[in-house]
């Protein structure tokens, strides 16, 4: 009976997580609640001592989660976590085939090392903990499906997602919940909390594997291993942050990302924004932005453009890397600046009408002015929001005549002004 309830609960929560990840129109409170159940993205705003909107509520959910763990064991891991569910399903399949199981080896030093590294990255304002925590890695697994659906790109984060998928599907065939018991920083945190709980407290041990192995006091040897692991993990994180994670300028970052450095510090590369982007302009970057930018979303204007009436990506971002703005505000958010190359532009170099860029500009930042016998585009930079519609539409070959240069920091454009005050045709009666 308990098993059935648990499976049902896990299945429902898996569906919920898929809905949040792929549902562009998911209600913000539902998404916020889902994100708050994941300690690492949720607490990542703490080093800024600036909580995202609804941050206090998110912290309350985290506190509640930790309290439940203290009182009743790792219920999150057993009843909710989709990563745990995938591992349980794999193990059930193996058992049906008659394959034996062994408990995952208790490598306490490794566990504490991973947890300390994740915590250190967080406190050092580096989002590199995303390589360690289960939330971001699960996002990359979902991202696999998205990339296959839209045909790529199959880059850095695709490889990481694939590795994680294999880890949570293949290893549990032999060692149940191997990831939970060996690497998961959230799992280790919960385990430590369980060890703090007085023995005999209500429901201790009621929650099933892998919690059983977490109960009981640590031996002196275990304590030493844990301490050594923690020091090594935190030290490694600090070194990596200082030496390898320098932001390199490249590409246009998603709306709400503020400035490149801030975006790199907070983005988890979880692919949630990539999956909800209706125009598919958001793609996970490769290594061109250095290790700090790898796998994080960028706007590819040769592939698509940022839709004017849309704020889907900043509605789903779990880490606060993308600040939320309502659509009307986001419409003014400047991601970059359009630059015109007259020497490639069809009206200027071939004296033929084109207007492909002006036609798609949502803010009137491109106007067509007379040029010889044709009309050529002229930029009005005050109104440009860097949405890339012009770059995407530009038919010039081999080089586009208009492209968006990323803004080092996002800002706001002027409110678009319709009507030019020019004389208008009479409104009354037919002019023919």
């Amino acid at each position, binding site marked *: 009976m308990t098993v059935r309830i648990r499976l049902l609960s896990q299945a429902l929560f898996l569906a919920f997580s898929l809905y949040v990840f792929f549902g562009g129109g998911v209600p913000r409170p539902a998404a916020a609640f889902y994100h708050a159940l994941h300690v690492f993205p949720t607490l990542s705003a703490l080093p800024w001592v600036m909580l995202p909107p609804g941050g206090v509520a998110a912290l309350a959910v985290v506190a509640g989660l930790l309290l439940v763990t203290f009182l009743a064991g790792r219920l999150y891991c057993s009843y909710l976590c989709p990563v745990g569910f995938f591992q349980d399903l794999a193990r059930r399949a193996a058992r049906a085939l008659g394959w034996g199981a062994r408990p995952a080896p208790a490598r306490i030093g490794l566990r504490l090392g991973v947890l300390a590294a994740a915590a250190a990255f967080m406190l050092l304002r580096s989002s590199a903990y995303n390589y360690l925590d289960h939330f971001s890695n699960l996002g990359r697994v979902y991202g696999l499906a998205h990339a296959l659906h839209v045909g790529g790109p199959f880059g850095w984060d695709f490889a990481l997602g694939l590795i994680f998928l294999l880890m949570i599907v293949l290893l549990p065939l032999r060692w149940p919940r191997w990831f939970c018991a060996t690497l998961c920083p959230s799992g280790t945190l919960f385990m430590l909390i369980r060890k703090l709980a007085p023995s005999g407290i209500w429901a201790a041990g009621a929650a099933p594997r892998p919690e059983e192995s977490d109960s009981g006091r640590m031996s002196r040897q275990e304590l030493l291993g844990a301490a050594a692991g923690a020091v090594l993990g935190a030290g490694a994180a600090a070194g990596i942050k200082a030496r390898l994670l320098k932001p390199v300028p490249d590409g246009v970052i998603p709306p709400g990302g503020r400035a490149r450095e801030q975006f790199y510090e907070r983005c988890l590369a979880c692919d949630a924004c990539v999956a909800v982007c209706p125009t598919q302009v958001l793609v996970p970057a490769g290594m061109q932005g250095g290790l700090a930018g790898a796998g994080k979303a960028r706007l590819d204007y040769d592939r698509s453009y940022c839709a004017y*009436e849309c704020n889907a990506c900043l509605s789903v971002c779990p880490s606060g890397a993308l600040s939320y703005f309502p659509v009307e505000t986001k419409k003014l958010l400047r991601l970059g600046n359009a630059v015109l190359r007259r020497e490639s532009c*069809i009206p200027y170099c071939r004296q033929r009408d084109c*207007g*492909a860029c002006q*036609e798609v500009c949502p803010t009137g930042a491109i106007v067509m002015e007379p040029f010889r016998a044709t009309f050529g585009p002229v930029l009005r930079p005050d109104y440009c929001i860097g949405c890339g519609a012009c770059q995407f539409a530009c038919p010039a070959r081999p080089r586009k005549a208009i492209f968006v240069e990323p803004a080092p920091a996002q800002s706001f454009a002027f409110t678009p002004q*319709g009507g*030019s005050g020019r004389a208008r*045709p009479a409104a009354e009666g037919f002019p023919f």
Partner: protein
Amino acid sequence: MDFTRKDFLKLGASLVAGGLAPSLLRGASPAPVRARPGQSAVDLVAVRDGSPAQLFDAGIRALGGMGRFVKKGQSVLVKPNIGWSKTPSEAADTNPELVGRVVAAAYAAGAKKVYCFDHSVNREEDCYRRSGIAQAVRDSGGEMASGEDQSQYRPVAVPGAQVLKEALVHELYLDCDVVINVPILKSHGGGRMTAALKNLMGVVWDRRFWHRSDLQRCIAEFPLVRKPDLNVLDAYLVMVEHGPIGVSTEDLQAKKMQMLSPDMVLIDTAGAKVLGYDPGNIPYLKMAAELGIGRMDLERAAVKRVSLKS
């Protein structure tokens, strides 16, 4: 077959150029011309001062009724402008009330099936929904087809074209028995104006080729593939500046007009005048007239003007 058609077009072009077209194309008998069954003496109907649906009802009646264009059991394509993710009050897409009415009228005339689509510039789903057109078409019993699936486009030769010699064209535009073109009138940065001729850019796959090669020429040449049987030009709310997408409603002027004609060049000539342009300054109109797509001599055409003002 191709050859004779080309010859015919050349003949038509020279006739238009010679200014002989109006009398010859309408037949030998001088005005007043009596409407034969299935024909009409009217070249263009212009209606004003009503809602888009009222304007259409009055206009199609003045043109001889929908039965003139749609016969029982035929398949019909209604091709509005649904290029933009904009609402009806922003007038970047054809008025949805009008599109719904055209679909209903086609069914009333006995159409077997009425389709509607556009190869939208913005994301199709957004355009179809926010324009209100998908809802209006479905409410009238029509079927929204997709324009963003390349497998539904077929390569066709454009007979007599100099620039647009081949195009990937949506199968519905090629296969439907009847095509009703329902553009909205707007200013246009690239084409200078958009109405009936420019609206057909939404039935081809590769628009960038047009922009890159010679936009005006491609717009003029495309109808050599096939001309719509009827054009209904929505000039209810007209984007007189910053077209075709518009910056704000400041760019719009409420004209409350509608034009109907089987001749796309003639209807665009009228549209140019509504926008306050000299039709002679729209390059593709002249080119299309020379190719025999239609006529620009609005002043000599039989125009029926209707006002619904009570």
